[in-house]
């Protein structure tokens, strides 16, 4: 199975699953942040234009702060998320799953300068591809990860099963149970033909339609719908 999850043991002895975020959502988050920064520059320019020399000084300080500290402050004080990361539902955490500290945020964001080199985060992308945990150089130095934050919404679907009981023809292993539960859960996202095709693999001696109905009853019984 292709797995983008990193499993971490917490002090409670629990197994924390960190779903790692790859380059695409991170690039999108960066673009959102870029747009926000641009708008901020525009507002600053309009505001400080009224203030003359002092305004120019403030503008330069503002550019400096936005360029270097925009991600630092958001990530340190906003649960590891910049506005862009929040829209993409990703967040920065330390590699042991704990929330990002200010130090960690500073290191990973100062090293953006290195990751950006020579242009468009090329170094960072290469580092991410070579890392088993999608870490760019800044993440490696700060020991941080970017993870998906799952807000708990899940497709509320289940297979409609006809009446009657069905027993499996074979002893159900754990893997079988998972596959069956997954089939029932995702049934509504599949087309009818595809559902039947899949079910036919389980009961090749039945017609696809019968196979689907039988599998649905089996899943429903296993999950406890009936």
């Amino acid at each position, binding site marked *: 199975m292709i797995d983008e999850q990193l499993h971490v043991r*917490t002090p*409670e*002895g*629990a*197994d*924390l*699953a*960190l*779903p790692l975020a790859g380059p695409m959502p991170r690039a999108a988050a960066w673009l959102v942040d870029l747009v926000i920064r641009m708008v901020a520059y525009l507002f600053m320019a309009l505001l400080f234009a009224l203030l*003359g*020399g*002092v305004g*120019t*000084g*403030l*503008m*330069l*300080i503002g*550019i*400096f702060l936005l*360029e*270097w500290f925009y991600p630092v402050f958001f990530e340190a*004080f*906003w*649960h590891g998320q910049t506005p862009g990361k929040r829209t993409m539902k990703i967040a920065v*955490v330390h590699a042991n*799953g*704990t*929330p990002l*500290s200010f*130090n960690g945020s*500073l*290191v990973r964001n*100062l*090293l953006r*300068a*290195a990751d950006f*080199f020579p242009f468009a985060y090329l170094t960072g992308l290469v580092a991410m591809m070579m890392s088993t945990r999608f870490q760019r*150089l800044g993440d*490696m*130095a*700060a*020991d941080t990860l970017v*993870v998906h*934050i*799952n807000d*708990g919404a*899940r*497709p509320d679907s289940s297979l409609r099963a006809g009446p009657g009981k069905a027993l499996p023809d074979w002893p159900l292993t*754990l893997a079988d*149970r*998972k596959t069956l*539960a*997954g089939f*029932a*859960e*995702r049934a509504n996202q599949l087309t009818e033909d595809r559902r039947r095709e899949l079910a036919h693999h389980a009961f090749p001696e039945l017609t696809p339609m019968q196979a689907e109905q039988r599998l649905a009853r089996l899943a429903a019984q*296993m*999950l*406890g719908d009936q």
Partner: protein
Amino acid sequence: VKQRRFEQLYRPEWDILTRQLERLESRRGKGDMDNAGLADLPGRYRRLCHQQALARQRGYSVGLTTELDGLMLRAHRQLYTYRPPILSRLRRFLVHDFPVAVREQAAWNLISTAVFVLSSLLVFILIQQQPDMVFSVMNEDTVDQLEQMYGQGSLGSRGARTSGDDATMFGFYIMNNIGVAFRSFASGIFFGVGALFIMLFNGSYLGAAASHLTNLSFGDSFYSFVIAHGAPELTAIVLAGGCGLRLGWALVSPGRFARIEALRQAAQGALPVLYGVIVLLLAAAFIEAFWSPRDLPLAIKYGVGATLWCLLLIYLFFGGRRMPGGGR
């Protein structure tokens, strides 16, 4: 227990936990008021850990385990949030941590200082011998600007500076100098090459400017301008270079650690120095914008500058030898 029954049984508990987490997450990091109803959060989190382990063990559906994983991660993030007090640590940092951290990486500071000083000396001597060589370090426009700034008698042209100009320059120094320092640190990760290059470049630039203006006998005007803010500014740049070299060396020769672990440790060790560099450069920008351009007798300007250098070096060499508040 079948999956549906399991969900029915614990769904109310998960809903309560979700609501508690939403409350905590919307609280923008501040204000610990109204903690009522959150006392049982750790207990709920531990029960959730148990339920998640059960759900995996029993082969419940991926949707359910993913939901529980996500909830667990959110609870874990809230539970392990750490917000240290800032002010008390700031004092301790200035009195103790910063100078100690600087001395801890003395070797790297020494190397970056040597590169900076030697390159500026070399360029200085070369341009003393061959005045035209200044044009191989900087272009004609920059040379013209330098001559205009420091020429025309002692600081005469800057008599007309307004407070608005000072503020503009303050902003510029902050943006430019702290940016250079950060880049020295970051580019050091390329095996130290980036940091060395920035030291070399800035050293040569300073040497060229000093030498060229000395040739034109604008020396006093130049040195009296740079001596005061030079203390924190040059020190800070050289220290940032040291941080970058330390980072690069961790990758070149990680010693007994894995490279990634050595890198992490180097970054963590260099971080206090970097915080100090920011403080020094803020001070430097302030001095450079509001003190250096003032038209005062040379003796006063040199005196103040020399005093600043002495104080800063004493601070870095001897500061924090004893722990604040007793102890060793």
